[in-house]
Structures are given as structure tokens and as C-alpha cells.
């Protein structure tokens, strides 16, 4: 009997192990080895940390790296601020069919691909686009105004793209909060903000942290949105990786960039968990 369960356990675990080792661990080891090669001549390579030194010595790469990290953190915070009231309304205030309907509305934009959503934003924001034309029609502005190709446009795109991934974990943690606890808070003389701060947010913390981690990772690794909405000033770290791999044929530097990004994202996730006193089990479980 015990042997039977063990066999079952191994069989059930096999797909996961195969997935992890074949698609994640082995490629990463290979990429790490590539990142340590330096091209010394036509088709000749040597092992050296040159690629990592290039990253550290070129201010442009460091600057892009910092910029990507800071903008991703900012996008995560904005997503949280926008997403929290939405999630609270859906989880606590809406009832029955309205609740399902609102939840569905959050999902609808994700039925089309990210590319289509990004094109949608381009149609809205461009100089001859919907918003610019509407403002001119209403007489609020004279002459077309360009809203695309800047950091604000990137931010809009990132927040919109990751909204769902913040709202879903928030709804599930907020849904588990007993209404009676909130009522008890009011009965004991608590005000709106103090109840939010002392009851709701602490309860929702695992959801907030897991939502933030997912959104941060998505923003940091996003390629399409910054490139398309950012235009000439986009400058996103994944773009640098893409161009090293595909345009420059410089896989060595690209692999080093990839590793630096992996280290950064792991560090920020770790730091967030430590700062908020959460553990991975609590947030993901």
C-alpha cells in the first residue's frame, strides 16, 4: 500500500520535475555558461566575466536597468492603488449577479492578446487618435496633441496590462474577510480610515503582496508595451536583451543581461517579502 502511494507520488511529480528541469533549470545553466564567454576572434571564445563588467562599466546599461526597476515598482504601486477599491467593491459591496458581472468585466480585456490591447491604446493616444480628436471637437484644445511615445503612455499600458493580476488575488483575500469583523470595528467606534488601516489591509496583506509580486514581475519582463507605447524614448531592459540576442548577434552580453535581470527580480521579491513580514507559503498558498 505504502509502495503504491509512493509510486503515485513519483508519477504525479514527474511532469513538474520534467517541466522545471527541461524548461527552466537546464536553459538557465546553459545561459549562465553563455554569459561567461567572451568573443576574442571570429568563432573563438574564452571564459571571462567580461560581459558582466561591460554591464557595470557602461552607464547606459545601468541607467536603463535602474529605470526599468523604478518604473516597474511605480507601475505596481499604481496598479495596487487603482485595483484595491475595485477589488473591494467586487468582493464586499457587490452582490450576486452584479458581482459576477463586474468580475467578468475585469476579465474581458484579457480575452484578446496583449498586442491587440496595446494597439488599442495606440489608437486612443496617438496624435490623430480618438482622445486628441475628441478634445479638438469639444474645443478644449486647438490643434492635435500627441499623447503617445512617452513615459506616461508606458505607465498606462503597464497598469492596464497587469490590472487583472492584482484584482484577482485581492478579491480572493478580501472575500474571506468576515463582514462581521468590519461591523464589529464600527461598533467599537472605529472610523472608515482606521478600519481600512487596522482591519482590512492587514487581512488583505497576503493578497496585496502576491498581487504586487506578480504585477512587478510582469512589468519588469514586459517587452511589447514599453516598446510600442514608449516609441523613441522607451528604453526598457528587456528591449536591450532582445537587441543583444537578435539584432547584434551578441548572445554573450544578452545572456549576462538576462541573468542580471533574474537576480534583480529575485532580490526585489525577497526584499518585499521581508519588508512586509510575509512568507512565500502564506502569499501563494
Amino acid at each position, binding site marked *: 500500500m505504502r509502495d503504491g502511494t509512493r509510486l503515485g507520488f513519483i508519477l504525479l511529480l514527474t511532469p513538474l520535475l520534467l517541466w522545471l528541469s527541461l524548461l527552466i533549470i537546464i536553459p538557465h545553466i546553459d545561459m549562465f555558461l553563455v554569459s561567461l564567454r567572451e568573443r576574442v576572434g571570429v*568563432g573563438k571564445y574564452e571564459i571571462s566575466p567580461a560581459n558582466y563588467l561591460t554591464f557595470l562599466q557602461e552607464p547606459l546599461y545601468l541607467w536603463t536597468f535602474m529605470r526599468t526597476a523604478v518604473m516597474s515598482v511605480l507601475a505596481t504601486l499604481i496598479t495596487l492603488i487603482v485595483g484595491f477599491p475595485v477589488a473591494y467593491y467586487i468582493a464586499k459591496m457587490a452582490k450576486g449577479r452584479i458581482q459576477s458581472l463586474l468580475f467578468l468585466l475585469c476579465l474581458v480585456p484579457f480575452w484578446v492578446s496583449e498586442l491587440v490591447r496595446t494597439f488599442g491604446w495606440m489608437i486612443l493616444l496617438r496624435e490623430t487618435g480618438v482622445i486628441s480628436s475628441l478634445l479638438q471637437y469639444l474645443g478644449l484644445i486647438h490643434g492635435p496633441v500627441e499623447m503617445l511615445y512617452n513615459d506616461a503612455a508606458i505607465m498606462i499600458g503597464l497598469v492596464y496590462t497587469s490590472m487583472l493580476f492584482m484584482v484577482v488575488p485581492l478579491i480572493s483575500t478580501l472575500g474571506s474577510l468576515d463582514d462581521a469583523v468590519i461591523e464589529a470595528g464600527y461598533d467599537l467606534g472605529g472610523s472608515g480610515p482606521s478600519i481600512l488601516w487596522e482591519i482590512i489591509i492587514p487581512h488583505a496583506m497576503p493578497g496585496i503582496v502576491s498581487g504586487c509580486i506578480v504585477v512587478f514581475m510582469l512589468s519588469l519582463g514586459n517587452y511589447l508595451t514599453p516598446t510600442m507605447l514608449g516609441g523613441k524614448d522607451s528604453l526598457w531592459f528587456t528591449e536591450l536583451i532582445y537587441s543583444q540576442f537578435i539584432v547584434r*548577434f551578441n548572445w554573450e552580453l544578452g545572456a549576462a543581461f538576462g541573468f542580471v535581470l*533574474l537576480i534583480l527580480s529575485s532580490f526585489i521579491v525577497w526584499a518585499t517579502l521581508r519588508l512586509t513580514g510575509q512568507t512565500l507559503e502564506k502569499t501563494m498558498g
Partner: protein
Amino acid sequence: MIDPKIDFRTKGVVMQKRRGSLKFIVSVATVSLLGLAHSASADTLRLLTWGGYAPENVVTLFEEETGNTVEVTKSNNEEMIAKLRATGGGGFDLVQPSQDRIAGPQAEFGIYKPIDLSKIDAAQFIPSMLEATKGNTTVDGEIYGVPHVWGTSGLVLDTTKAADVKDYTDLCNADVAGKVSYRLKRPTLIGFAFAMGMDPFAAYGDEAAYTDIMNKVEAKLIECKPNVKTYWGGGDELLNLVRSGEVVAAMAWDTGGWKLNADNPDITFVAPSSGALGWIDTFALPAKGKADDAAYAWINFVMQPKIAAMITEAAGNFTASKGADEFVSADLKARYQASFPPEAVDNIKWYPPVPAGLEAIEGGVLDRVKAAN
């Protein structure tokens, strides 16, 4: 996070009906394994090419005539090389990189195999173009490419609003500020270098001189950046920008200009005064291609004048097929002649082969221009 765009597609396997289910499963497993090992049967041509180079009607004619099937994958120079490099030259049977992108990558990565010229009907090619391509794609005495489609990049202008733009550097003029677009890629660097009176092609062999030229171009492009609306990435993106009137002057391919000219006669392609940049896309065989006979059959098939004219209609560019011009529509010929008076044709700067390693210099310049404010 990182997508090296490696294509792991394997051929679909035709399964026959068997009686015993076990037998069926075993045979399916075996056939799929075989399918993985030999990802293409001899009569499937996996073609990695540019949009428009293998139009549906040509593919159908070819399949009817030879019985081979064709799988078309659309791409661009950099992605073609990246894909072949990822697989060591496997996954495709025929590829179409530009002629300047064969010798360097071949020396560096060994992703192509030599072309057997005896299997190609040389009489179908324009002789001068065939010889030039052969010369540019020779590595260690072996020839790796034959020409297919050629064209140029230059200026696409709205002639009513950007009449003063005569050369690439005029894109930085104040009267077109904010209404300019170009790609942030190597043709832009080369074009600006020529327009600034330098000759980057002559400096290809000399890294120090080339770096010097690129540094000057970098300064110019950074100075010019406020003028640029956005750096375009794909052909359709540029067409949209010009069509909507948001951009009135751009550095672009000739076909883009001719397409726009068909919709709006004010917009057309103009060869810049320093000379349009000429490229030739070739046929090359990947090192691990498995259907060489089908590949040679395809080359000989599409170089027939009538078929080549069909490709010209689809891609907008002319081919190296001798005598195909007379089958091309009068509209396209008229646009070509308007953009290229004889002296502009003579002034076309053809890309010489890019030596391995130059991309790194250009890459640094492009990154810094992108990052500048």
C-alpha cells in the same frame, strides 16, 4: 522574459489506421519519434523569407508543378540569422538573407552550406547581379548565395509638406520638426554617414576609422532626436504614420513609398542626393537543410520571368530575374522610373558584406542614441 524565437516546429505526421490499439499506439509513438528525428520529409520545403517573397499564388503553382509542399515562415535579416544560429543552421531548407549578411555570419557561426551552381539555371539571372552576389557571398572559395529580390532604401516624402528634404540629414531641419521618422538600425547609420559626406563602406575593414565615422553619426543622430516623432519598427507602422499625416518625411524602403503613392499621389519615394542604399536579398541554403533538391527547384521556379513578375507584384520590389520587367504592371514601372532617373540608379550605394564584429560598434551607437534625451 527572453524569447530567442527558436522554432521547434516539427512536421505533422500522417498516421495510418491500424487494427490493434496497442499496435496503433506503438506505431504512433515510433512515427512521432521518427518525425522528431527527421523533421522534414524530402518533399517539404521549409522556406524562411520576407513578407511578399512567396505569395500564395506562386506557392500553389509550384506545388502543382513539382508535387512538393512549401511551408513559408516570414522574418527579417536579424531574426533569420538568430534562428539559424540557435539551431546551428537547422529547421529550414532555404533562407533569404540580404547578400551583405551571408559572409560574416558564415565565417562566425557556420550556418549556411555552399550552393551547387550546376543545379541552378544561371541563364535566368541578370548576369551582373549574379556575379556581384557571388562575389559578396564567397567564403573560403565557396559561394553561399544567389540573388533574388533587390531594392533600395531612401526617403519617403509628402512632397507638399517636405519639399526641402533632399537628403537624410535634411530630416533634421526645423521645418519638419516632430514629423520625421526613421528606423534605429544600421541602414540609418550608413545613410547618415553618406549624407554627411563620409564613406562608411570604405572603412568597413578598418575598425578605428569606422568607429570614428560612427561617433560622428551618433552625435548627429542625438542632435536630430527632438525632430523625430518615433523610430519605426515595422513597415506597416511606418505606412500608418505617413498615411495619417503624422509623419511627412521618413527614411524607408522604396516599396513603402510606392504603396503610399498608390493611395496618395503627393507621397512618394525619393532617392536622396547622397545616393539610395541598395540591398539584394538572396537565396542561401542553411547548413542543416534537408530538402536541397526542393530548394533548388524553388529557386529555378521563381526565377522564371513570369513567376518573378508575380513576386514583384506581391513584394513591390524588382527581382534579379532576366526579362521579368516586361511582365510587371505599368503602374509599378512608372513609379519606379519616377523615383529613379538614370543618374539616381548609377548613384545607388550597394551594401558590401558586413565583416564580423562591426555590429558591436553599431550596436553601441544605436543604444546610446536611443538613450539620449
